[in-house]
C-alpha cells in the first residue's frame, strides 16, 4: 500500500505551488484534481474548436519569489510585459493607465497620479513581506507569532509618522473617497478603483478592504499591472507541473476526492488520507486541501469531526461570487474605436456610479441593468489561444450575483450574455460580425465547472473579517486546521486569491515546519 507524505486536493496553481515546494524538499506528493485539466480557475481549456481561454485571463501579482524559488523561467514560463489599463470612453476619449503615467486626463490629474502612485507603492512595499508569511495566531505568545506582529509594527513605524497615519486612514477607506480626494476625471476614478473591487462583493462606496485588496495586487513584479505570459497562463501552470514532476511529485486528473478520511481513537482525530469518487482509498501522513474552505470542511471532512461553532463559522463564510465570464470566439480581430491594437486590459465603467449601480442591482439578487467589466483579448499576446488570424475575447463581468432572484434560467443567462455583448459592441462596432461562438459563465456555472463554492474569485470574500489572521476564519488561519494532518493551501487562506501563489507557498512552509515535530 502506497503511503504518501502529502496528498494535495486540487491542482489549481496553489495546489501545484504547494506540491512543488514539498516535492523539492524530498517529500512524496500526490496531487488529486477533480477535472481533466490542471490549473483550477486558471486552467486553459478549449471552449470552441481551436479557441482556448481560462476563467482567469491575466496575471497581476504572481509572486516573483515563487518564480525564482522554483526556477519557473527555466521550465517554460516567460513573464509577459505589463499591459496598460484602458478606461473605455464612448467618444473614444479613453484613459490609459500605466505604472508611471496616464493618458487622456488633465495635467492636474496626472500630477496627482504621480503622488498617489508613490504613496500606494510605499504602502505596498510595507505590506509586501506579509503576503508570503504565516499570519500570527490570535492570542498566541509564540515567538514566531510575536515577531510577525512586531515586524508589522516596525514596518508601520518605518513608514514615517505622516505615512503611518495616512496608511491607517486609507487602509479601510471606501475606494470612492480615495478617488474623490485625488482625482477629477470620472473615468479615471472608476478605472483606478476597479482593482480594489474586482472579485469582491464591494463597490466604490463600500468601506472595507478595497484599498488593501489594491495593495495586495500591487505586491507582484509589475506592481499591479496585468500581464499575460508569453505563452499564456498555461505556460505558468505547465512550468509548475514540470517542476513538481521533476522533483518526483505526481499529479492525477479526473480524480475527484469525495471524502477526507480521518481516524479516531482515544488520542483524538487525525486525517489519514482521502477517498475518491470511484471508491479508491489513498493514504497519506497529511492531506493538504486547495479546495475552498467550505467545501473542504463541510463536504469533504464533515461537520461530525469539527467543533460546532467552528462549523457554523465555516458555513457563514461569504462565498457567493459576483464575477461572470464572457468568452467570445472571434473570426478576426475586434476593433475598438480609438485603439490601434486592443492589447491592453480594457475597462467598461464610465464612472464610479456605474460600478455602484451594477452592485446595487446584484446585492438584491438582480442582474445588472448596465454591466461593468474588464476585457482582454489574450490571443493577441498568446497566439496559441486561437487559430491563425482569429481571436478570443475574455471579459470579467462584475456584479453578476451567484444567486439570481428567480434562478439562472437559460433565458436569464442569454439576456445577460446579450446585454454584455451589446455593451462591448458600443465600443467595438464590428464585434457582433466577428463572433463565431459565445460562452457565458455565471458564478453558479463556475461553481460546478471548477468545483469552487459560489464560484468566488478568492474562494471566499477577501474582506476585513476574513483576511490576514482571520482568513478564512480563526482556528484555520495558519494553514493548519483543527484536525491534525489536515491543512489548507488554497485561495481561501492568507493572503487570498488571484494568481499569486502565496497560500500554496505559505502552506508548504508551514507543513514543513510542523513536520519537524511529526
Amino acid at each position, binding site marked *: 500500500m502506497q503511503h504518501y507524505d502529502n496528498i494535495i486536493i486540487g491542482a489549481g496553481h496553489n495546489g501545484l505551488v504547494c506540491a512543488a515546494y514539498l516535492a523539492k524538499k524530498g517529500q512524496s506528493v500526490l496531487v488529486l484534481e477533480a477535472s481533466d485539466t490542471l490549473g483550477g480557475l486558471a486552467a486553459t481549456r478549449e471552449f470552441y474548436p481551436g479557441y482556448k481561454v481560462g476563467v482567469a485571463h491575466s496575471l497581476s501579482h504572481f509572486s516573483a519569489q515563487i518564480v525564482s524559488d522554483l526556477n519557473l523561467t527555466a521550465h517554460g514560463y516567460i513573464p509577459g510585459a505589463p499591459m496598460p489599463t484602458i478606461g473605455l470612453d464612448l467618444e473614444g476619449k479613453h484613459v490609459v493607465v500605466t505604472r508611471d503615467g496616464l493618458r487622456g486626463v488633465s495635467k492636474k490629474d496626472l500630477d496627482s497620479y504621480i503622488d498617489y502612485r508613490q504613496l500606494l507603492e510605499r504602502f505596498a512595499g510595507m505590506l509586501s513581506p506579509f503576503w508570503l508569511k504565516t499570519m500570527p495566531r490570535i492570542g498566541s505568545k509564540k515567538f514566531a507569532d510575536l515577531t510577525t506582529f512586531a515586524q508589522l509594527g516596525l514596518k508601520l513605524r518605518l513608514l514615517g509618522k505622516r505615512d503611518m497615519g495616512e496608511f491607517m486612514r486609507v487602509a479601510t477607506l471606501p475606494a470612492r473617497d480615495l478617488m474623490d480626494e485625488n482625482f477629477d476625471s470620472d473615468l479615471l476614478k472608476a478605472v483606478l478603483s476597479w482593482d480594489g473591487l474586482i472579485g469582491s462583493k464591494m463597490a466604490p462606496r463600500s468601506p472595507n478592504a478595497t484599498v488593501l485588496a489594491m495593495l495586495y495586487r500591487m505586491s507582484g513584479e509589475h506592481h499591479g499591472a496585468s500581464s499575460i505570459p508569453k505563452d499564456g497562463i498555461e505556460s505558468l501552470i505547465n512550468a509548475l507541473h514540470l517542476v513538481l514532476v521533476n522533483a518526483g511529485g505526481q499529479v492525477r486528473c479526473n480524480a475527484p476526492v469525495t471524502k477526507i478520511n480521518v*481516524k*479516531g*481513537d*482515544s*488520542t*483524538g*482525530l487525525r486525517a489519514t488520507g482521502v477517498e475518491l469518487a470511484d471508491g479508491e482509498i489513498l493514504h497519506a501522513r497529511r492531506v493538504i486541501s486547495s479546495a475552498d474552505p467550505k467545501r473542504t470542511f*463541510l463536504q469533504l471532512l*464533515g*461537520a*461530525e*469531526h*469539527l*467543533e*460546532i*461553532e*467552528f*462549523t*457554523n463559522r465555516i*458555513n457563514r463564510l461569504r462565498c457567493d461570487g459576483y464575477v461572470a465570464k464572457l468568452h467570445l470566439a472571434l473570426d478576426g480581430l475586434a476593433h475598438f474605436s480609438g485603439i490601434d491594437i486592443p492589447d491592453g486590459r480594457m475597462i467598461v465603467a464610465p464612472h464610479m456610479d456605474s460600478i455602484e449601480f451594477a452592485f446595487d442591482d446584484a446585492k438584491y439578487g438582480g442582474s445588472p441593468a448596465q454591466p461593468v467589466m474588464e476585457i482582454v483579448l489574450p490571443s493577441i499576446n498568446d497566439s496559441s489561444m486561437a487559430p491563425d488570424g482569429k481571436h478570443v475575447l475574455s471579459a470579467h463581468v462584475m456584479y453578476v450575483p451567484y444567486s439570481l432572484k428567480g434562478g439562472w434560467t437559460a433565458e436569464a443567462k442569454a439576456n445577460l450574455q446579450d446585454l454584455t455583448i451589446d455593451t462591448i459592441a458600443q465600443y467595438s462596432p464590428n464585434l457582433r460580425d466577428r463572433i463565431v461562438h459565445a460562452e457565458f459563465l455565471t458564478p453558479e456555472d463556475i461553481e460546478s465547472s471548477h468545483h469552487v463554492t459560489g464560484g468566488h474569485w478568492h474562494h471566499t470574500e477577501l474582506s476585513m473579517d476574513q483576511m490576514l489572521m482571520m482568513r478564512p476564519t480563526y482556528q484555520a488561519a495558519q494553514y493548519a486546521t*483543527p484536525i491534525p494532518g489536515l491543512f489548507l493551501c488554497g485561495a481561501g487562506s492568507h493572503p487570498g486569491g488571484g494568481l499569486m501563489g502565496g497560500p500554496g507557498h505559505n502552506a508548504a512552509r508551514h507543513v514543513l515546519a510542523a513536520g519537524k515535530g511529526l
Partner: protein
Amino acid sequence: MKTDNKTQTSKLDPYAGERLKRSHFHPRQAELNLRDAWSSWNGYKFADYYYDEEYEYFCIRNSCATYDICPMQKYRISGADAHFMLNRMVTRDLNKLKEDRVTYVCWCTDQGRLIDDGTIFKLGSESFMLTCGSPSLAWLRKSALGFERLEITDLSDDLAALSFQGPTTCEVLKKMGLEGIQNLKPFNIMYFDIGGSSHKPLMVSRTGFTGDLGYELWIAPQLALTLWDELYAAGDDYGIQPYGEAATNMARLEAGFIMPGMEFNEALKTVNYQYDQTPFELNLDWLVDFNKPHFNGRSALLEERDRGPKYRLVKLDIAGNKPADESALYADQKCSVEIGYVTSAMWSPVVKANIALAMIDSDYIDGSIWAEIYYGKELRHHSKVVRCVLQNAPFWAPDRARLTPPPAF
C-alpha cells in the same frame, strides 16, 4: 353567527399573549396549591411549593411526591444522523447507550465551557429524546448543521411529564397496575397501558432529580389528567403530594446535583470571560469521555484536564446549623485569603448536617476551609466564621435508589 374562539378570548383578555402557560396537569395542581405559591419556569405557571416546602421535602424522602416537569424542555432528535449529531455534541459516548435506556449528559461550547446538562433517552436506533432545563433549540440547530438525515422536534409543549419520587413510588405504581415496574432498573425505560388503553401510551423511566428512588412518567397531553387521577388514587394511602421548586432544590442538593444559576452559569448566556464553568470544575469528569475521538470542546477540555481545573465544585460539611447561603470561603479563620464561594447550602434533615456545595480555587482544596456565614436573628444581622470539612462521598445516596426491585413498603 360563527364566532372565532381565539379572537374572542384575546378581546376579552388584552394580556392573553403575556400570561404564563398552563401545564397539562394544571387543573389538578391548581386545586392542591393551597398557598397559591406560583412562580414560573420556561413560561409555565409553576409552583414554588403547594402547601409547605419542608413537608413536601419530607414526602420525597419518606413517602412519595410528584413534581411537574411539563415545563422542562424536551426535544425529539431522529433520523439516520441523530446518533452522530448527538454524539458529537455531548461529552459522553453514546455508543454505549442502549435502546430503552437513559443517560445523563452535558454539552459544551468549542471552548469546553458548560452549556447545559440533561438526559438523553434512546427511544429507538434512530430516535432520541433530549431533556434539559433551558430552551436549547438554537444550540441544537447549530449542532445539526452538516447533518442532513436529521429531524429535530420541540416536544416541550406536546409531551406531559411528571416526576414521581420517593421510597414508596414503586409500590404506588404497582398498585396503579404497572405490571413489572419493580423490575425496571435505574435509567431504564418501560411502556405501560393506562385508562384501558392497549398501545402502551405511558412511558416510564427510572430517573429523577432527587437522588432517591423515583420515576419519570411521560404521556401525551390528552392522557395527562387520566395519569394524574390514577396515580393519585393509587397513592392516596401513601400520602402522595405534589412538590414544587423549593423541595426539589433541597433534595437535589443532598444528592449533589448541580443547578443552572446556582452551581453553573450556562455558557451561552455568560457575558464575562470564563464566568461560566467547565465539566471539570463542576466535578463532572466522569461525563467526559476522552476515549471518544471527538466531541465538542474536546481539545479545550483535554488541555484543561492536563493543566487541572482552576476551580472545583466541592461538598462541604459546615460546623453549626446556620446555612451558609452565599458565604465567601477563606483559607484562614481571619478571612484574609479568599478561596471560593458557596453555591447552594442548607441544613439537611436526612443527613442531619449543615451541608453546602461550593466552588473552591483548586490550589486551596487540600488546606483548611472557613466559611463566613451571615444570618439574621430578629432583625439583627450576625456573622460568624466556621470551619468546613470537605466531604467526598455523596451526602445522600440511599440503597433503594439503586436496588432492583426496590424494597417494598
